[in-house]
């Protein structure tokens, strides 16, 4: 009898946990999209990290590696992300995201921000392989492009 009660309790606990997970990503497609866009951000961060480490002097400047990282930024910022941002995947609708509803209310602004990131990435790719000073000069505008979007469309911590 005691075993049975324990088993029931365990099952109930599992059920509660399951319900909680379910509520955070009620729609599995939404959950998958949030996961994918976080992965995309990670890809940006990794490649920016290569460039940034050189800019800061934490890593020795290497023209080929800098060029590769910058080219990756151009490629990532050029992907079509429409499917990554389905309706109902904002932070007011689901848990586990800081994406503000403003993203879906301001298509024009988002499009402009995305274009600004592509431009800043292309500008970096044009100079990253030249020398360290050129790379350092292109870091600021790149940060500005990332920051403009995060300020407008990402909730504070």
């Amino acid at each position: 009898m005691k075993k049975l009660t324990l088993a029931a309790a365990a099952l109930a606990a599992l059920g509660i946990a399951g319900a909680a997970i379910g509520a955070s990503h009620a729609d599995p497609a939404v959950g998958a999209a949030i996961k994918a866009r976080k992965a995309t951000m990670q890809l940006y961060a990794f490649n920016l990290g290569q460039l940034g480490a050189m800019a800061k002097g934490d890593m020795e400047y290497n023209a080929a590696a800098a060029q590769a990282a910058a080219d990756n930024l151009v490629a990532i910022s050029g992907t079509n992300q429409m499917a990554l941002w389905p309706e109902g995947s904002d932070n007011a609708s689901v848990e586990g995201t800081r994406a503000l509803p403003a993203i879906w209310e301001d298509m024009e602004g988002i499009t402009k921000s995305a274009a600004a990131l592509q431009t800043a990435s292309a500008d970096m790719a044009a100079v990253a392989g030249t020398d360290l000073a050129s790379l350092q000069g292109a870091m600021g505008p790149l940060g500005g492009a990332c920051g403009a979007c995060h300020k407008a469309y990402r909730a504070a911590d």
Partner: protein
Amino acid sequence: MYMFLRIVFIAVVLAVLGGGAFWMITRPAPMAAGTYEGLTGDPVQGETVFWAGGCAACHAAPGAEGEARLVLVGGMPFKTQFGTFHAPNISSDPKAGIGDWSVADLGNAMQAGVSPQGAHYYPVFPYTSYVHATPQDIADLHAFMATLPADPTPSVPHDVGFPFSVRASLGGWKLLFFTDDWAVTGDLDAQQLRGRYLVEALGHCAECHTPRNALGGAERSRWLAGGPNPSGQGSIPNITPGGLSWSEGDIAEYLKSGFTPEFDVAGGEMADVVKNTAHLSDEDRAAIASYLKIVPAIQ
């Protein structure tokens, strides 16, 4: 009856004297006469003061980008527990802005919190930090601001309830919380001194990063230790060595490009701050980083 009248008379005299004394102590007092006399402003130096002072972060129109950030039309709202303040027009327009101000007018505003008409400013304007600035930097800033565009849009009035709407009460506030003592003292090298000047004076970092008490005064014992955001949303980070483990290089890079060591980017109000610090020299950003390493560590 005679006795009663005498008591009333004495009470009235005491009240007038007391009120008068309070007025004398808390009346808007400008900087010492002659502080800005004979100074010639250099607009090129003034541009550095302008970016280090972060003027555009509050006084540019909300959402302005690029060159538009040099139009200091104001309008940005600041929600606090005392009400909502609005950054005024400080463009070079002589009517709507401050185009007709002298260097002394600008100095008294920035360093004493007193308007040319002799009224107290609310400390949402960081004169508690700018008080540490050199008079020459004020003159240089004055020269630079005169080169910026004029905009005739009138300032948005503050939306502040009683009793905070009575500006005379700010005299008492200043008496309690307005000091020109540096927060970090001791043996500082040249770079740390420059960093202290940029952080404590022009950059006014402590205005947000040091928590405030119930009356809005800085809790200087928790210098730069962060706390809840007065807007009610989120919190402001601790940037003492007790809260920030970034290297000096990390801090300098963050102030230049906005990238954190994890290559996330500045958000919120800091995104606007980085737009200012991005204009500083690498040496100045390194100086800020060196100062942040010697601030007392608070957990």
